[in-house]
Structure formats: structure tokens, C-alpha cells
């Protein structure tokens, strides 16, 4: 059985998807994140609140997510956090 993803891994996966796809649509991000709609909504709200991502709406009211500088920095910090957690057995 595949190991259950931890919260930190889910956040990393969402941010990574946005970085790879640039201005990704919500539905596509939902599919790629492999989360239930409710959980997806919770994570997205948290990431917007933390300033990692932004929700952009264009003139045709099309919604897309984009990555902020803070979100980009997180991906770098994620490796440090992951290494720290694994090495201390936390």
C-alpha cells in the first residue's frame, strides 16, 4: 500500500504543480493534487493566506493560480525541512 502523504508533502505537491504549469486552472490543479474537493479548498485557502500562491481572475472571469516569490522560496526550504524532520525522526 502506498504511504499516506503528509500535510507538508501535499503542500509541496500543490506548489510544485503550480510552478511547473504556470497559471494553472483550479480544476486542473484539483486533479493533479489528488485531493478531495473539500481538502483541496482547505489547502488552497491556507496557501493563499500564507502568501505562497495567488488566485488571479482575468477579464473573462477565468480563474488561475500563480506562484509568489514566497511560494518559490518554500520549495527551496521544503528540502531543508524534509531533511531536518527525517534526520531527527520527527
Amino acid at each position: 500500500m502506498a504511504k499516506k502523504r503528509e500535510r507538508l508533502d501535499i503542500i509541496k505537491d500543490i506548489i510544485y504543480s503550480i510552478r511547473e504549469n504556470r497559471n494553472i486552472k483550479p480544476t486542473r490543479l484539483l486533479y493533479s493534487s489528488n485531493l478531495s474537493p473539500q481538502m483541496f479548498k482547505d489547502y488552497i485557502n491556507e496557501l493563499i493566506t500564507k502568501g505562497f500562491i495567488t488566485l488571479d481572475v482575468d477579464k473573462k472571469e477565468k480563474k488561475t493560480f500563480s506562484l509568489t516569490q514566497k511560494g518559490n522560496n518554500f520549495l527551496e526550504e521544503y528540502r531543508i525541512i524534509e531533511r531536518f524532520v527525517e534526520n531527527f525522526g520527527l
Partner: protein
Amino acid sequence: MPLYSYAYNLIAENIELFRFFYSMLIAFICLIVVIKTDRLFRISFHQGIRYFRNAFFFYGIAFILRYSLAYGSYFFLIKPFFQFFMIMAGFFLLYSLLWKKFETSKGSKSSFFNPIIFVFCMITLIIIFLDYLWVSYYFMFFSQILLFGLASIISCKNYKQNGKKHKFLKLYFIIMILSFFAWVFNFIFGSFFNWRLRWLANVYALNIIVFLVFLYGVIKLTKKQN
């Protein structure tokens, strides 16, 4: 004169100064660990990092209070606070290794809203009360020996499972064992040797090694890699 005797004489002649530097050194190490891990926690909201950070925050305060304990006039006022921070630090450190078994990774806003931490607080207050009644440190010693015994077993398991991949797990296991023995020696020297400096200096040395290894691990693992 052998180096050990020279070091001992130097400490014995300047005991107050030594106690001050010993407490401040460990408090300073704790401060660096708290600052480094707090940054990681604020980015990740990882509960294991939170409890690890809390442990060192509490150790830092405990060691500052510990220095104040040497001055008799406020002893009975300071002792319960010192014990509270010292015992809770041990609980936090143990729980940082165990939290995944008891809670989800989402966590709560504050550690003190967590029912398990609340139980730890209650146990700590009971230990402080019992030590107050017995006019001793026995219950604190027993609790810490038990905590670090458990932490040693868990860190040994972690090392066996992932030690090849994550090298610091081996050092972590060693420092848990050293901490366990530091508490055992503390109990023995305090109970049977009336806190004699010659013996107690070994516990001080052991504690300094433990905290320095923690500092080494935290600095090494939080360093940015290119």
C-alpha cells in the same frame, strides 16, 4: 598534574563562575536551536518541529532558572518553576518523536490546546507537588529517567529503520542514551553523594556534550545546500 585534576581544581576554585557559564552556555545553545527551528516551523507548521522547538525553549528557561537555584533565599520560589520547565521540556522532546501516533499533521493553533500536552502538564504538576512534599528531586529524576529511556528506545528504532539513509539518526540515538545516563548519574550523585562536585562535574560535561551535539545537528541540517 593530569589534565582531569587540573580541570577539576580550576572548576572547584571558581565554582560560581563555572555554574554561571555552564547555565548560560546551555541557555545560549537552546536559544540558537529555538531560533533555527522556529523559522522552519513557521514555514511548514510541522508539529514535530513545533514540539522539538518547544522542548529547547523550555530547556533554555529551565537552565536559566537552574542557575538562580544556587542562591538560597529564593530557592523554594524558583524550584517549582525550574522543575516545571525541565520536566515539560523532556515531555516535549519525547512527544516530538511520538506525535504522529496521536494526532493528525494539521495540529492545533497552540500546543497548550492539545489534550495530550495538557495531560503532560498535569503529570508535571503532580511530580512537582510530590517532590515538594518529599523535599526532594526524586520524582523529577524518575520521570526523566523513564522519559529518556523511552526516547532512547524510539530513537534506536528510528535509527535501525532509516539510519543508513539519514545519518544524524545515529547521533540522535547516542545523545538520547547519553541524556538517559546523565539523568541516572544526576539521581545517583544527588541521592548518595550529596551533589559532590567531583562527581557532578561529569554530569555537567555530559550535558554540555549532549546540547552541543544537538546544536551541531540543527546547524548542519538547517544549512542551505547549493
